[in-house]
């Protein structure tokens, strides 16, 4: 069992997350794809923590999870506020500041 395979899985999930952020239209779905990317990074952290047998990688994952929680809360608050204004979460419609 090699760490490379875990890194490969992490890379695939990260790529899927990036594709999701670029291709999807709903604001909440984009937030979910960002969570995918964060999880892929977490997987890589834990793989390396296991490889080098230290707890530092796990502490980083702890912090990333906390930050993801904070970001999800604030992001969803923004989406709700936006929805109240524009009645839609489609990011293509939220274009008032476009030049």
């Amino acid at each position, binding site marked *: *069992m*090699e*760490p*490379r395979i*875990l*890194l*490969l*899985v992490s*890379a*695939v*999930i*990260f790529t*899927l*997350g990036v*594709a999701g952020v670029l*291709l*999807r*239209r*709903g604001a*909440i*779905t984009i937030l*979910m*794809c960002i*969570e*995918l990317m964060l*999880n892929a990074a*977490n*997987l890589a952290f*834990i*793989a390396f923590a*296991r*490889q080098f*047998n*230290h*707890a*530092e990688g*796990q*502490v980083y*994952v*702890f*912090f990333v*999870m*906390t*930050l*993801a*929680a*904070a970001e*999800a*809360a*604030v992001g*969803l*608050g*923004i*989406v*709700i*506020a936006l*929805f*109240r204004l524009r009645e839609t979460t*489609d990011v*293509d419609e939220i274009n008032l500041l476009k030049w």
Partner: protein
Amino acid sequence: MLLIGFAILAFLAILSAATVVTHRNPVVCALALAFHLVAIAGFYLLLDAQFIALLQVIVYAGAIMVLVLFVVMLLNLPDEMRGRPSGPLQRFLGPVLALLFAAILAQAFLRFPGIFRAKEAGFGTVESVGRELYGRFFYPFEVVSLLLVVAMVGAVLLAKRKV
């Protein structure tokens, strides 16, 4: 034995991630993401990081995704439609940049051959992570708790009807 479990988990994780990225109904996407998070927790368990695996289930799958599901259901979001068709520049640049990205990730993949070393006793236990967290990372720990308070206040203010 471990390899079979790993293969199944990898397949499930990638399948649910693909569902999140492609399915048109946001509720199904959110549930697929919750499933994906539990699959990642399974990975952590396979790597003997017990504490982080349990935290992943409690925090990520059990709290954050429930919050996302709430918002999706309360806003009663419809199925997402496909976007406008892209112009020729995007259709050229898209695959090129994707291949470039894949090349970057591939060279990271090729640079780390070797198998996992033996696990130390006490790796991944609550004690070891706790010692590290309250030892070296004490200051970031306190700062992160402050950040959570700020995020909470901010989220409540953003979502209130009248300030």
